[in-house]
């Protein structure tokens, strides 16, 4: 069977989130995973995708569809799904992935399940799946009945595993395809499909963004007020990172929303997240659970964040952070 997967590019290669989606696509069974990439052919990372067991790449080049237009992208997927007889269409659960698949569902009348972590074909037109609710703090077991299953893949809970590793696993995964075929695809688009398209420009402030920072120093209610962030800024600077905040901080107006880490803010995926004076409300955890390592600094040894953190210092951040800064400067 054939499964179609939208692959986004990031820094020249396939986006990590898209590779996770491809991994899940491969897990659906004896499938031929075909991907769709919107880029110049020369930029298509075919080898990388081959390493993940992809059999085909359909490329839509800029001269036919330049830049991002969600409905147009969805139309492309619709055409290819139909052409290839795909039984499922997937994308990463990124903003674009969710958006494009939602358009696909709307234009075809098919249901779409967002942020899935596990999908299992169950015969005929049925797929059993597990998906996120509350940004992953609750799981939904669901059943999808549809001629073509549409779903996006949660960006942080499905591992991205190369096909080679998969095939060596226990039980061994499907064998690596022998080759990958790249097709330059010419889509048929409706007029309305290009009605909404993105005009891109570099984002405002340069420098490290919260979403991509390697180190994030977080401040919550424990900081106490807008004037309490100086030590955190200093620490972030020393560690080459940025400051993030919890929702309490932004709704009090202490810091702008673009610094907010959380379900309705930014989901961060740093090497290290230092959560200071943050209790760990679930919608905040939703935003930082992708961090590789979490260290909590809190006066409360029972704060929920400690069940998600690797290390903790029990104490007042107003004492600990300056002391830490001093120690780092002394090195």
């Amino acid at each position: 069977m054939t499964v179609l997967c939208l692959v986004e590019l990031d820094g020249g290669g396939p986006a990590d989130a898209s590779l996770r989606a491809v991994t899940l696509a491969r897990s659906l069974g004896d499938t031929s995973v075909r991907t769709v990439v919107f880029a110049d052919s020369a930029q298509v990372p075919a080898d990388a995708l081959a390493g993940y067991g992809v059999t085909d790449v359909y490329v839509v080049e800029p001269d036919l569809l330049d830049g991002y237009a969600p409905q147009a992208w969805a139309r492309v997927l619709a055409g290819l799904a139909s052409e290839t007889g795909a039984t499922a269409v997937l994308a990463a659960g990124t903003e674009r992935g969710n958006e494009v698949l939602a358009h696909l569902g709307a234009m075809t009348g098919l249901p779409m399940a967002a942020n899935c972590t596990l999908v299992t074909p169950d015969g005929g037109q049925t797929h059993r799946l597990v998906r996120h609710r509350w940004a992953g703090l609750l799981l939904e077991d669901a059943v999808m009945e549809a001629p073509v299953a549409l779903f996006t893949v949660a960006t942080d809970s499905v591992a991205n595993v190369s096909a080679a590793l998969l095939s060596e696993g226990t039980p061994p995964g499907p064998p690596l395809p022998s080759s990958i075929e790249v097709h330059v695809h010419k889509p048929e688009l409706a007029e309305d499909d290009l009605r909404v398209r993105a005009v891109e420009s570099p984002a405002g402030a340069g420098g490290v963004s919260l979403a991509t920072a390697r180190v994030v120093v977080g401040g919550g209610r424990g900081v106490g007020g807008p004037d309490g962030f100086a030590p955190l800024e200093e620490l972030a600077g020393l560690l080459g990172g940025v400051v993030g905040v919890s929702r309490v901080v932004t709704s009090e107006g202490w810091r702008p929303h673009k610094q907010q880490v959380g379900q309705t803010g930014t989901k961060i995926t740093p090497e290290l997240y230092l959560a200071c004076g943050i209790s760990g409300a679930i919608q905040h955890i939703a935003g930082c659970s992708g961090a590789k390592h979490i260290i909590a600094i809190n006066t409360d040894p029972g704060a929920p964040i400690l069940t998600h953190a690797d290390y903790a210092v029990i104490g007042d951040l107003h004492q600990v952070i300056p002391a830490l800064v001093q120690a780092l400067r002394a090195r």
Partner: protein
Amino acid sequence: MTDTQPRTASAVIIGAGIVGNSLVHHLALLGWRDLVLVDKGPMPNPGGSTGHASNFIFPIEYSKMMFELTTDSTAQYKELGVFTQSGGIEVARTPERMIELRRRCSQAKAWGIPAEVITPAEVNKLVPYLDETVILGGGYFPTVGVVDSLRAGTLMREAAQQSGALTVLAGTEVLGITVSDGRVRGVTTSAGEIETDNVVICCGVWSPRIARMAGARLALTPVVHQMISVGPIALFADTPGEISYPIVRDVDTNMYERQHGGDMEVGSYAHRPIVVPPDEIPSIEESVLSPTELPFTQDDFDPQLAEALELMPELLGDERAGIRYAINGLISMTPDGHPLLGEMPEAKGLWAAAASWIKEGPGCGRAVAELMSGLVTTVDVHEADAARFYPHQQTVAHVRGRAREGFNKMYGIVHPNEQWESGRPVRVSPVYDRERELGAVFYETAGWERPFWYAANEHLLARYAGRLMDRPAEWESRWWSPIINAEHLAMRDACALVDLSAFAVLEISGPGALTAVQTLSVAQLNVAVGRVVYTSWLDDNGGFRADLTVMRLAPDRFRVVTGGATGRSDAKWIRDHLPPDAFLADLTSAWTTIGLWGPRARDVLAAVTEDDVSHQGFAFGTCREIEIGGAVVLASRISYVGELGWELHAPIEQGARLWDTLWAAGQPLGLIPAGIGVYGTTGRLEKGYRAFGAELTPDYTVVEAGMTRPKVKEQPFIGKEAYLRQRAEPPVAVMCTLTVDSHEGASGMPRYMLGGEPILSLAGERLVDAKGRPSYVTSAGSGPSVGKHLLMAYLPAAEAVEGHALLVEYMGEQYPVTVARASATPLFDPANDRIRS
């Protein structure tokens, strides 16, 4: 912040709110070491009621104890540097409230609280954003202030830690309390076991749950109290600090408004009572803010929004000021509104310090620390005794029923005689049905239904017309009837039956029984079998602890008879001082007591018994079994109303028969039923009999109360040393009975005081004795036989001269009074001829 859990402790204090923090501080100051403070939440704010409290303190209270606890707490807050004075105003929207404010300000004067009634314009000057057209006036209390209770608690806790006396375990949950052989043995927490002899429950709304772990009941329930915070308030943007305007209590709407920085905090006690069972309080994890800051139920607050807007239209009506904080806050309520302080009856070493407001918190901490250290408390907290409630009063049904009934009365006008309605009747005497048929108006004491007067006696009003001292003014006529005075006169003319089933009857027996009662009592108890002794019980300071009678029924058996209201506390006091070979039995539910008094009482009794009840045959102050109409009755010849007569004790199931027998015999002799209005007030005031809790309190000595006997017994008793010292010195104050010379006020209607009013010099100044105790009316009531309204009060020794003229202030007006007695010599029948006839 959090230390390692030790294996043993001198005391484990559960709950780090304002009370727990104050308690550990005071224990450390009193020399305790190896203390452990446990809380499942974090420091400094573990998430209890202290964390979101509105933190303001009005010094004026309905109860003297609460006033004193508040005064002590305020002093402690000031010492900690967390008190900011703002002033406070209770505004009146109704004429009834204006009357109450006048009464309240006079009461404030009695206790030395600055207070004055002010006009709407004057209110507006102090609080410019308050619409003066909405109010009729206000009561201004300039010493009102706000505190930072979290900071205060933190400072107190840290002081104890720094002195090395205290280990703090935050984020640690108490899972069990071990009790065996009637003693506390230890505590189990999420971090292991701690062996200890003392556990103190200071966890506010969670307290009943924790108490259950020790097999105890705590009469407290969490209830919701809504509050919102509105801001930014334009006017407050430039004011310095936390508060620059007086706090407003909009008492007629059950609301308050206080500035808090740039916001106006608006709180309400007006919504429907919402009880939250302790087991339904969310955990810290489940809570968005904290376990005691529950989600706001908007519908319940909407009527209050309108009222607040009406009072402060521009300030709160500003569209740019938003409701930026709104909670259903949780607070603790008890059936009588007083805290729970002291050792619990269920186990030795199990203590409670719960149901306190911020304004009494530090004072409650001190009081319990003193109790735990075996000291007499600085503030008399017997009204908050954790052991005061009877089992039925500790039931969830009763506690919640009273809390619901009391909630909307938080700022209510509370009459001193006001009666609760919920959960009644619970304890009824064997003659309850007879009393109902006689139209008894029942008041409740300790759950007992007691007739205060009988509607059936209405026909007496005509007989005694002109001597009834009727009360035309609404306030003092409330919860009162001139029938009481008619019953009194009829009793003194003939005789009366009084149902005294509410007495607590406690029997001490065993080889050590005599030692037990000797140790407890001032009076000599090694008397002949069949003697009845009226005695006081003292505390170690020589202050009054109880006032009751003891009958020696056998060489090793003594029956203590005390008031129902203090029965539970008195029983615990006895148990705590019993030698190993003495035993206590509570026989309250086994015996009923019916009083028969008046000049014809002997005639009535003689008609129903063949036993010798003549004066020679049955001396005053003795008791013996007699036969009355087929029942064996223990008759005790004493009198709290100053008349010839007996208390008749019968097994409870025979009480109705006893009543009926006496009733039938008494009809031709003019026997009437008389209620507690006579027994508790008119009768005793005329005789100058002091009552425990009113005249007899730990704050005054036996000498000052005028109750010394010529000799002090040789045997040791509690308080003896102090008592001997007190006898060696002249009293600083003297208990006096005063008569009101004129009741004419400005309104032209005669006014009658009810108690609590300040006694002033003729120049209108407060009288305060050398120990700083102010003079105020401890008891007030009609003296129909002497034709005067009577007041009892402690006066500074220099003022305690018979014939001395003074003033009493009531409802803002002053009335002339005269010192009629400066000793215990009665006004009526001073030689006690009637009693001894």
